[in-house]
């Protein structure tokens, strides 16, 4: 690393409503290196990269390119400087062909002012670019028909066509298969050989170990540390990311009674868009059951089916021993089965409305007489919940959309806490939530379990699954691949089940405590 850094940002600060996303972070990228940027959700990785790529303008900080000070600029200028960001959710026009996407906005034309598209020449150039990323599709192919892995490669080809010196990949493998991921690694290696730098954002530590020359860790919008190639190890990264003892992050005060009753009993469930293989499992009162699996394994779909969002085809669901039919969330809420959804901005909250109105929304049965809302009760509910959950806001009148991720999640939780929940499904409960709020959410989960609520926690964050669960169910391609007791829990065991393998210890029985087929719950 004797060469000057290709890019150097220092002391960058960026504020969003309700949250200091970047709090004086610095980062240097050297020519031809693959730099992995890791950190928890909300640590500021994506935000800093958006600053570098010209999408966000920071409040403070400096930018140096090839050792020269330059001002922060917009997207077009950043691209001209050779910095290209490939977004997590790809930015391709799905209705257009591969070639059209590669040259979108920079179309080659003939006939001067007539602007007739030079299709032949563009297709030839596109062909060459696709060859470089090893993608064997015709430039005339419609992008929408390509699988996610190939779209990713189209994005990289587009970056190459821009003569990129630095390509930023934000969670590039989140929707890729293993084979597609391997292909991506080869392309990254090839980019490196050509002197292109890559910033690789990921929270999959195994991937980071595979591709990175160097690792920079962010935490809560600040630099938490840096690891050279030789130092890259799982534990070291986790310690820097979390910044505290794991025991302290995951409180476990609740204890599972030996005779805990079955609160949720799912028997032979099949649902629209799910696997044809029926799903059966049980949750006990006072138990936190983790649900792991790869993206696309059907965990969210299962939650939607249980909550009445997704149509159930067959099977029976029992809550506290009584059969329930749930075709609409209304019935789920009535039965005491509640969902804290994955996509809280779209499903959990009405962002334009106040905290108070969001908290009241599912609780009008206790706030009204004959439909008339008693404002006093509504205010009291909001006050109680905000205090109990320690929601940090200017007041109950603040719009939910202006809260930070963690505080938004607390409000989503608060909507349900006023009811007497029996079963609560958390879908990715701490995605986009800062570390501080995370431990508070875990504490609440623990507290609910202590009160006898059955909890199903769907999570892609293995640390979280291992830290919080009494028992883990693993889904693979829509069916239950296996179950791990607390004693059997381990990263390896979970991953093996999640990818379709079968570890020695795993049982594939349909339930936790000694299932007796056909017996009615008490």
């Amino acid at each position: 690393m004797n060469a000057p850094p290709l890019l150097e940002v220092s002391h960058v600060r960026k504020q969003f409503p309700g949250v200091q996303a970047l709090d004086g972070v610095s980062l240097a990228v050297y020519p031809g290196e693959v730099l992995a940027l890791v950190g928890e959700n909300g640590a500021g990785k994506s935000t800093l990269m958006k600053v570098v790529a010209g999408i966000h303008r920071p409040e403070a900080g400096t930018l140096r390119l090839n050792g020269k000070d330059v001002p922060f600029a917009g997207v077009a200028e950043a691209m001209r400087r050779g910095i290209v960001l490939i977004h997590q959710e790809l930015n391709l026009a799905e209705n257009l062909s591969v070639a059209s996407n590669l040259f979108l906005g920079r179309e080659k034309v003939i006939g001067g002012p007539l602007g007739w598209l030079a299709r032949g020449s563009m297709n030839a150039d596109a062909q060459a670019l696709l060859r470089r990323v090893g993608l064997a599709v015709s430039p005339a192919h419609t992008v929408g028909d390509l699988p996610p892995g190939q779209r990713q490669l189209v994005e990289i080809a587009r970056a190459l066509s821009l003569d990129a010196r630095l390509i930023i990949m934000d969670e590039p493998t989140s929707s890729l298969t293993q084979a597609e991921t391997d292909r991506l690694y080869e392309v990254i290696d090839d980019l490196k050989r050509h002197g292109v730098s890559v910033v690789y954002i990921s929270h999959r530590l195994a991937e980071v170990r595979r591709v990175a020359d160097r690792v920079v860790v962010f935490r809560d919008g600040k630099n938490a540390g840096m690891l050279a190639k030789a130092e890259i190890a799982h534990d070291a990264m986790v310690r820097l990311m979390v910044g505290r003892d794991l025991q302290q992050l995951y409180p476990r005060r609740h204890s599972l009674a030996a005779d805990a009753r079955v609160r949720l009993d799912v028997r032979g469930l099949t649902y629209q868009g799910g696997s044809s293989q029926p799903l059966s499992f049980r949750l006990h009162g006072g138990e936190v059951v983790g649900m792991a699996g790869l993206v696309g394994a059907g965990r969210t779909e299962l939650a939607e089916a249980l909550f009445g969002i997704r149509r159930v085809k067959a099977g029976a669901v029992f809550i506290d021993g009584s059969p329930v039919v749930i075709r609409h969330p209304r019935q789920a809420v009535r039965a005491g089965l509640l969902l804290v959804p994955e996509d809280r901005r779209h499903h959990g909250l009405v962002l334009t409305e106040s905290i108070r109105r969001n908290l009241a929304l599912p609780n009008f049965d206790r706030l009204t007489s004959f439909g008339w809302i008693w404002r006093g009760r509504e205010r009291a509910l909001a006050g109680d919940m905000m205090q109990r959950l320690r929601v940090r806001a200017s007041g109950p009148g603040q719009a939910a959309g202006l809260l930070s991720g963690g505080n938004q999640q607390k409000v989503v939780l608060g909507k349900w806490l006023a009811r007497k929940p029996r079963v609560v499904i958390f879908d990715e409960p701490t995605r986009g939530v800062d570390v501080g709020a995370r431990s508070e959410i875990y504490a609440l989960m623990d507290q609910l379990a202590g009160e006898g609520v059955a909890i199903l926690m769907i999570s892609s964050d293995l640390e979280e699954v291992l830290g919080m669960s009494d028992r883990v169910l693993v889904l693979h391609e829509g069916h239950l691949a296996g179950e791990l007791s607390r004693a059997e829990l381990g990263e390896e065991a979970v991953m093996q089940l999640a990818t379709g393998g079968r570890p020695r210890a795993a049982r594939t029985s349909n339930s936790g405590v000694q299932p007796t087929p056909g017996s009615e719950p008490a």
Partner: protein
Amino acid sequence: MIRLLGVLLMVVVLYVVFVTSGESARSVGAHQDIANWLGYYGIVTVGVGILIISGGIDLSIGSVVGLGAVSFSLLLRHGYTPFVAAVLVVLGSSAIGVFHGLLVTKLRLQPFLVTLCGLFIYRGLARWLTAGDSIGIFGRTDEAYVRQVKAFQELLVKGDVFGVKNQLIALIVVSVLLGLFLHGTKWGRYLYAIGANEEAARYAGIATDTYKILAYVICSTLAGFASVLFTLDNSTVSPVSAGSWLELYAITGAVLGGCSLRGGEGTLPGMFLGAAILPLLRQICSFWEISGEVEYSVIGAFLLVGTIADELIKRRGALRR
């Protein structure tokens, strides 16, 4: 709140312009002219405003008013008492609302398209019912009939209480009731939540389809009621012109009153004030002898200026955060 102040300011300015535009503008008669228009027009504005808050839209209002006006006259001619005829027209309009709501929720059709089809269908029906001819409410001449209709006309439209026209009182009563509904009850809250984020409302356990249908029913029912007022006010209605363009006036009024076409925004007092703007503008145009031909342009320009001002205020607010 700032929006409500904005529309209040607009109404006050227009009113001042109006009363200073001539001696005759200060007369009771000139005010009552405005009140008459405001009455039935305000009622449809409030209806469509509530629908817009819930995230819907209705382009068929004018045609529903046309069909309602023709049906009301025909029912009277066939010997129904005015009260029964009015109830039938209002109920028929509610049925149209149920129909729209079912198409939007169960078949998941776009509200814009469903009600655009309605715009043509109901207008066509209205014209077919009378073979295109105008029709009056005094189609029969027996004395008992005329007395009954006149009494009904007096009650709903022509009469006044201390000079305030009954038609305006009808609007005020409707507005107060719906204001309590929209701002005081959980059902009103549900409409706001559905309009702002239907998915979040569903995930909160709200039967969103039911409340969306309810919003269409409110809108169409009020259009039906407005058609009765319109018919009584004019005595003779044409199936071609009765209520034509009214849907666009009503949407304009609701938007000027603070409703966002994205849904989830707006207040009842705002809609009420928004409804007052067009009648005032129109009256000013006539006093200033601005010809009827450019009146549309004046209205359009006014709406555009209002929209721009609103956007600028919003941006100011966003910057301050």
